[in-house]
């Protein structure tokens, strides 16, 4: 219990500190922080829209947070989640369009497989490059993000757009590929809210990631590689294999964003759909202390902010929804510079430093 409290304490301080800094910024531009924050946070709890949209926004963030987490646990910084989820969403739509006439029994598993495998494969590229040539995964995943965005934009524009459509998006997927919205099962919850089964899949993935990392041999080897690569190698673990495996698992999780987006929400691939999900995933993983439960909590927080941003934009005079990104940036800065708080308080034993980029 004490351990949990300690784990929660630090992220909580970081969030509060970020809100204080954000509040000062809001004051500086001549608005009232209390009003702005009430708009930002207050809308999330209304039933059904507030809660429904918050959980809907949380879904991709849980996936991307888990993806970043798995990388971190292996000592890898997967900054390429954004590119992986684009590739995967397009692949999902491609299967859904190509096999549009098939029944759900065939189509849904195939679409799931497309999302997971394409994400895993795209993420495995920087894994292999690191394992084989030692080139830094941070640089390669950044570069692959841009390549991914160009690639799917090319396929959408030249091969899968409905002729005459002014929007850069593909045709719709077959009805057999749709997954149900939660409104179908929850009484009083309207189906217009796009919260869908992918949310439950995201929660399931939290459990699976936990079991994988802490209850299987593979997960143990990944964590051993992350915490002390030379000791792991000495203990007979092939670091190269762990790097590729961790990147593939990370990419598979990133790819599942495509399930939520394509099979549960828009029913097509829409170019540029991601609202920085991949980069927010970094914040989610870090704030969630690289633990699946923490990821859920952090994803919920950022989802609340994202949903509330719309209200801030609409109802406050000087504050725009950009405050969400500002808060997010400050939160990560504070989480990254943990020793800042130690220095501020002037005591406390040093916590183990995150070793992501070494």
């Amino acid at each position, binding site marked *: 219990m004490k351990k949990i409290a300690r784990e929660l304490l630090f992220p909580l301080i970081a969030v509060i500190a970020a809100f204080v800094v954000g509040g000062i*910024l809001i004051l500086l*531009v*001549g*608005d009232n922080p209390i009003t702005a924050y009430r708009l930002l946070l207050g809308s999330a709890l209304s039933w059904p829209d507030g809660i429904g949209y918050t959980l809907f926004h949380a879904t991709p963030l849980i996936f991307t947070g888990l993806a970043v987490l798995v990388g971190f646990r292996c000592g890898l*910084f997967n*900054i390429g989640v954004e590119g992986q989820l684009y590739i995967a969403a397009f692949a999902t739509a491609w299967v859904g369009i190509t096999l549009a006439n098939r029944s759900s029994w065939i189509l849904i598993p195939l679409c799931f497989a497309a999302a997971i495998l394409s994400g895993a494969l795209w993420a495995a590229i920087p894994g292999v*490059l690191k394992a*084989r*040539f030692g*080139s*830094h995964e*941070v*640089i*390669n995943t*950044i*570069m*692959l993000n*841009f*390549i991914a965005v*160009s*690639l799917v*934009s*090319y396929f959408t*524009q*030249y091969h899968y757009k409905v002729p005459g459509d002014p929007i850069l998006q593909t045709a719709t997927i077959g009805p057999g590929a749709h997954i149900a919205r939660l409104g179908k099962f929850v009484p009083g919850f309207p189906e217009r809210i796009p919260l869908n089964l992918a949310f439950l899949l995201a929660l399931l993935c939290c459990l699976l990631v936990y079991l994988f990392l802490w209850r299987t041999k593979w997960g143990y080897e990944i964590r051993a590689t992350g915490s002390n690569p030379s000791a792991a190698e000495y203990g007979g673990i092939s670091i190269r294999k762990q790097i590729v495996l961790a990147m593939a698992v990370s990419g598979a999780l990133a790819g599942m964003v495509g399930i939520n987006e394509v099979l549960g929400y828009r029913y097509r691939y829409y170019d540029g759909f991601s609202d*920085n999900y991949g*980069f*927010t995933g*970094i*914040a989610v993983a*870090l704030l969630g202390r690289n633990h699946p439960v923490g990821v859920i909590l952090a994803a919920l927080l950022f989802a609340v902010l994202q949903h509330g941003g719309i209200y801030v934009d609409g109802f406050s005079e*000087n*504050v*725009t929804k*950009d*405050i*969400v*990104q*500002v*808060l*997010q*940036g*400050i939160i*990560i*800065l504070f*989480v*990254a*510079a*943990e*020793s*800042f708080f130690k*220095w501020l308080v002037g005591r406390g034993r040093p916590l183990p*430093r*995150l*070793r*992501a*980029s*070494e």
Partner: protein
Amino acid sequence: MRDIFTLSLIASTIRLATPLVLAALGGLFSERSGVINIALEGKMLAGAFTAAAVTYAADTKFGLGNASPWVGLLAGLVAGLFIAAIYAVSCIKFKADQVVSGAAINILMLGVPGFLSGAFFLSSGSTPQLPKDHLLPQSPVVIAITILLLVAVIWYVLYKTPFGLRLRSVGEKPEAADAAGVSVSRLRYSGVLLAGMLAGIGGAYLSIGQSSLFTRNMTAGRGFIALAALIFGKWRPVQTLLACLLFGFTEAVSIQMQGAVKLPSGEDIPVQFINMVPYVLTIVVLAGFIGSSRPPRALGVPYQKEK
């Protein structure tokens, strides 16, 4: 293929390469001192927004006229410096993970310009249009000479001065430099702050040189292309300049061709593939397929002084 090498294409290559050169040379100082700089994008955004906003204010509020873009340029430099200072303190003093802090800066700077322009200009993320005659000079000849001079100075500083030698030594073997009495953290601060200033100017050139206002996320990944050029240029000034010119050229081609480049055989190359070139080349060169590109040895490792 022949008709794409026109004079106007060369001019636009130089213009488009300019912000890349500035940011990449900034990144060079930072990375040669051992601090990874994925935050170039954020620093460029800071410079671009501040330069445009200050130029506008200098022009309309203070009536500085033709001098206003120079005030804006200075403000862009200061903005880059300010962001770099936050980054430097977090990475060097508090030994935060450099990649994480860099990502934080990038996310922060996606939001800050929109936040401020919403408040100051009541717009959704852009600054008001500036008059055409109140912008930085755009003559390719003037820019080319400035850039060449800058590269020469940076080359000289890096390879021929004690400061440059020390800077490179803390990026390679900080323990040895420390033992020789060089202050690792002071040199890293200089490297990161120089990077901030240059990236800030690069961003400023984007908003008050190439265009006449700041728009939301106007760098559109140029900070990362600059980073790519730095790696493709093997962390050396002259090669980095050449890489920036190459990447500026690909951008110029993709703009000039408006959609697709026609090959002599009549086939199209979609613009998306031209856009990919810098990124693909970087991955290839980093993997060692074209010569080898070795990063400074202590890149990304916070230095812990032995007690």
